[in-house]
């Protein structure tokens, strides 16, 4: 006797309900009406017009017609049986007028825009799902739990700026990592004595592991800080962390093993935002990170073109020195170094394990989020304009690079299209098939929302957060406003980039300040 589970009961109940609906459906619904005739179909088709019956024909040729008065019917009249053809004149279809040039152009443009948007949305969706495309590929995205045979030495860079509140804990956490040979290099600006004090204290607590390097550059930004520390690194592998990061103690062992088994030059491990409930958009921001590190980056690694993440990224020190370190003028130095390493044919391995991800927080406010996004988008544009990606070996990679780096433009364009689309909804009159075509991009978008809802459940399970119905609701409701936010940031970045075209140095100056702030955030 098999044990009956709750699931089994539920399944049985569903099956019975279904069967009952089938069996009694006829009774329940059919009893009302026994009409077999289909509903009468009103005429709405304007292309077929009904002409009045021809009036020219005499209505009556009948010899035996009644006079309608005192005169009797005629008797014995010999006549032909009259014209038996039907009285209605043959109708001719009026064919719809052919399209004029403006309409053709308009329809073509509309169709093209929908197709492009569809392709963008569909490819984004597909890459977003890359890790789950089969159970095997999902298994391949994690770390192998096997230690390396030959240990590597690590230099962990920790740039910090005005972050005296969180830095101490981070230094202590990094100093407790489970690995025999590694060092932590804290990079502090020369104009930031409070942070320096915290860093020095940390170095004092862990003298064999932690060192402090002072960055004298003016103005300051993250790539310059990293470049300052690069010559001082002694490890085989260099890792980058941020001051607020919460790093898993076993991470270095796993990364080391990953380096060995994949033979890669760069290993990117996962980063995850954790504060799901702090605001309406933080949930979406967290999921964005989740999909990016859980799935999308694996795709880029496989394609051998990757915009790297800003932290928990490890690279062989010699390779970094060989390419001259980070681009000091780039707003998205992480992306830039990834692209540059990709063009040099560097192998990148990405590994994600919910247990060892580096945990972070979302920006503190919508303003900070928009600023952060603006910086990233502008950074992507800078990388695009720099043109390093043109050196990628295959056409496929170059296409992917062009597409990935131009994404902010596309996003901005989509944002700009939104008001136009809303106006068009009321003004334009287009044929039904084209109207349906314009809904095409909505398809992948809605599937994306469904997939996000599925991922939210998994996210909650993996990180031990209880996801409520309200969270799902927030996810769905927030989808459109959040996209608007991103589109606004993209527009802002395009605007800034175009404004700063002539005065590059000046813009950089302003941005560097901001970017330092937003890194700090």
């Amino acid at each position, binding site marked *: 006797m098999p044990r009956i589970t709750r699931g089994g009961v539920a399944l049985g109940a569903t099956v019975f309900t279904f069967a009952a609906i*089938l069996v009694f459906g006829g009774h329940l619904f059919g009893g009302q*009406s026994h009409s077999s005739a289909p509903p009468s179909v009103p005429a709405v088709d304007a292309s077929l017009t009904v002409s009045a*019956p021809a009036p020219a024909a005499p209505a009556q040729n009948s010899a035996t017609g009644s006079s309608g*008065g005192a005169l009797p019917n005629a008797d014995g009249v*010999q006549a*032909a049986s009259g014209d038996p053809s039907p009285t209605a004149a043959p109708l001719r279809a009026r064919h719809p007028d052919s399209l004029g040039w403006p309409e053709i152009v308009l329809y073509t443009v509309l169709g093209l825009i929908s197709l492009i948007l569809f392709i963008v949305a569909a490819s984004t969706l597909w890459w977003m799902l890359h890790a789950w495309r089969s159970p095997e590929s999902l298994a391949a995205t994690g770390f192998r739990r096997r230690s390396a045979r030959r240990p590597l030495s690590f230099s962990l860079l920790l740039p910090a700026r005005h972050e005296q509140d969180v830095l101490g804990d981070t230094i202590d956490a990094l100093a407790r990592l489970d690995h025999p040979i590694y060092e932590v290099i804290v990079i502090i600006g020369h104009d930031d004595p409070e942070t320096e004090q915290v860093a020095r204290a940390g170095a004092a607590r862990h003298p064999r592991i932690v060192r402090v390097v002072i960055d004298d550059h003016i103005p300051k930004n993250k790539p310059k800080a990293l470049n300052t520390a690069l010559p001082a690194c002694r490890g085989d592998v260099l890792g980058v962390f941020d001051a607020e990061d919460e790093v898993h103690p076993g991470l270095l062992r796993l990364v080391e093993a990953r380096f060995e088994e994949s033979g890669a030059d760069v290993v990117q491990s996962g980063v995850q935002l954790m504060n799901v409930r702090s605001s309406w958009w933080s949930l979406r921001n967290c999921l964005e990170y989740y999909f990016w590190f859980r799935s999308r980056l694996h795709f880029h690694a496989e394609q051998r073109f990757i915009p790297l993440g800003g932290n928990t990224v490890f690279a062989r020190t010699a390779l970094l020195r060989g390419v001259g370190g980070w681009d000091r003028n780039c707003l998205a130095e992480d992306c830039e170094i990834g692209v540059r390493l990709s063009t040099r044919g560097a192998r990148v391995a990405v590994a994600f394990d919910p247990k060892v991800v580096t945990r972070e927080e979302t920006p503190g406010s919508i303003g900070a989020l928009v600023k952060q996004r603006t910086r990233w988008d502008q950074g992507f544009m800078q990388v695009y304009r720099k043109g390093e990606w043109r050196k990628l070996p295959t056409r496929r990679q170059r296409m992917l690079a062009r597409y990935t780096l131009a994404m902010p433009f596309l996003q901005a364009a989509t944002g700009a299209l939104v008001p136009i689309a809303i106006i068009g909804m009321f003004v334009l009159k287009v044929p039904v098939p084209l109207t349906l075509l314009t809904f095409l991009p909505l398809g992948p978008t809605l599937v994306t929302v*469904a*997939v996000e809802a599925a991922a939210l459940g998994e996210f909650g399970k993996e990180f031990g957060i209880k996801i409520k119905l309200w969270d799902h609701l927030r996810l769905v409701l927030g989808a459109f406003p959040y996209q608007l936010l991103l589109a606004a940031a993209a527009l802002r970045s395009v605007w800034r980039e175009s404004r700063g075209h002539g005065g590059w140095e000046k813009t950089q100056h302003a941005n560097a300040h901001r970017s330092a702030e937003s890194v700090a955030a």
Partner: protein
Amino acid sequence: MNRLTRVNPSIPVVAVLLILTAGLRLLNLSGSPIRLDDEGTYIAQAFAVTQWGELAHYTYWYDHPPGGWLQIALWMMLTGPGFGANAVTAGRYLMVIVAVVTAGLLWLLARRIGLSRWGAAAALIIMAVSPLAISLSRSVYLDNLAIAWLLAALVLISSPRQRLSAMFGAAICFGISVLTKETMLLFVPMVAWLVWIKTSPATRRYALAVFAAVTGLVISTYILMAIVRGELLPGPGHVSLWEGIKFQLWQREAGGALGDPQSLKRHTIDEWLRLDPVIPLVSAPIALGGLFVDRLRPYAFGLLTLVLMVVRPGYLPVPFVIAAIPLLALLSAGIGERCVGRLRDLARQPSVPSHVVRSAAVTAVVFTAALIGTLWWPGYRTSLLTDDDAPMAQAQQWVSDNVPKDDRLIVDDAIWVDLIRDGRERQNVIWSYKVDTDQQVQAWAPHGWADYGWVVSTPSMRANMTEHGVLNDAISHARPVATFGSGGSQVDVLRVDAEASSNAPAPPAVPAFGVQVAARLDGASNRDAVAALQSGAVDQRVVAALTGLSTMQPVVLEQISSNPDEEAAGTPAREVVLAGPPDRLTACAAFLQEQKPPFKPDRISLTDNALTIRFPAQGQEIGLGSNPAPVTTGMAAVRVVDMRLGPAQDHLEFVRLDGGPGGSAPSHVPDYRAVAAGSYMLATVPDRGGMPLMRQAFTLKPGATYTLALFSGAKPNEVAAQLAPDGPPTAGSPVRLMQAAQAAGAVKLSMSTAGGSPTVLADNASYGLITGYGDQPAGAYDAVITAGGREWHRPVDLTDGVPVTLLLTDGTDGPALEELPDGAAAPAPLDPPALTFPVESPKPDKARVELATALNPQEQAIPAAVVLIVCVVSVVVLLKHRRR
């Protein structure tokens, strides 16, 4: 083949089975079953998509989602208009391809479920050779397309590597399958179950999300379409999705109980059993058996759902069983394989001798196969050998040969597209179902049944007839002109006749008239043909035409041919073949070509030594059908009153049927002329020369006087003549009315003496009316003519003892009223006869040119472009392959 076998050992087996599937369906493809209304509807809707960019050939009312016929439309665009014997057959070729694809998918599914090659092959064989499957899967049913999509979805769901992309594909396929035929929604539980068990727990969450979202999105395009068209909810003046769904779910006539032998549902099931007594009966046991095999359980559940649908009270469509066949094949093969496996295990046990088990198994298999084969045999005869569609095809050919392009037809949808492609306007070819259900169609026919000329009545049309309505009226006012086939597959072409109140066909010429004309024919005429002419089974127009022709020149009658299908419907012979020297035949052809209806032949074909003339199928009374035996002695008097609209510069020729002395008379002088009693054919001859036009025949009795009233016919240049006997001189003052005033419309005529009360002589009298005599006291009257709200006064003076015809014509100031005293004192004889061919007769066309369907160059370009693309792609692929 060896190389292919190395690639995949299944290839030869599958190839053979697919060829078997295709072969059995291609055999007698167009002959069985008879083209059904449904098939024609889907084809016509696809045609509307390709031709007019509309979703249906009438207002689309959300009866089914349009996915199915959009696919058929694609096929139509690819194959072009000339593919297949007719439009439905062209669609059936697509169905054969779909059947092959379905078989291939079933193989994949069986293999993915874990059946052995033999098991999978058994499933394919069952589906390939069942007569029910053969018959239904080659009919143009949406279910065939839908089930192919469903199987594709199932194959993808069972992806062995559990790919997410396969789930995307499966969801799209399942969505399309529902959009193709909404009954596929019944499989939602089965599909959901399969999606659940076929996905790995690690990725299930995403697979489910993707599957549900994509399926939902694909299906919701239907709703979206309704919203975009503004037809989601019911409203005035438009159809709506809601009403369509309501009709399909709740308002369809329930099929009745399964146990009731008279019920519609029982009829449907009997139809299935007639083709295949095995499959419908074993489906329930097979489905229940399948529940006990692990890997078959979801499919068994799916089949059980269908069985429940059949059992429950409610509407049951004929193609419903199509969805069950692949599942049934799969389940029987799976269960069979399981049984064979058990038997093998048993045979391995030492206690049972293996040869006993083996021979028992062989016996059982052979017995079952023989039994099923025997049961299927009659089904094969029907589906593979009988040409059930012949009556339909003949009727279609007849219509295209005989029915004028401008005539209105009510037809079965099965031939709708073919008639439209034949060059008819879509408003002139009406699908019978829409006559009473579509307001647009009703608006095209404001006079109801009288606006239709023909009905092509097919078995499915008769089966779906309603008791009331325009279609019913049209059929009850129609008479068969041609009949094709007999029994259940009989197809009738009916002529709707506005005049005929009964179903009696137009009478043939009375034999006596035939005898008169036969006597005048050339001695070289064919004896059989002459005998046929005198038999009384010849159309009146043939007799009249032979009269006219033999007056002008010797006529050699070669043949009078009648169509057996028309003969069966009681239609008189309407085709004659004349022989003679070419110049004579040419003159005859020219004469006939110029004639006006009803004497205008619809086919004149001229060769060097034969002229074939055929008159249109709509037989008409022209004066030779019913009159008494012809008289040959005595004199009569005739007066011609020309009341035609517009100036008519012609004179009349009276041509005696028996060749006796006729004569001519001017048409514009209303004087009595003496004419020998007898039967005449009346012709008009233009004064300035030109072709004489036959108008009508009539018979004059000796001693009688007549007024020959000429009215204009319904069409320009047609004449409607009426020969009215004049009243004898009696006491009192009899008066009659001839109404020839057209401008004012229907008129009212009343007369009053000074101070007396008015007598209404006629009311609502319109052009062309001749009344009988009514007695009026002699005296002076004031005639009041009322029409269109206006009134005219005309003086009338009636003399005692003289019958008077009041002639109402269009005058310069309102209707004019003329008094014509009836009765002739000493009529002058007719002028000498002068019926000849004009000196300069126009040359007739060498033969009637058959108008081919004008091929749309665009439609031709699409198949060509597709072929080109396929070629280019295959070359590119080949080159790439080589390079590797």
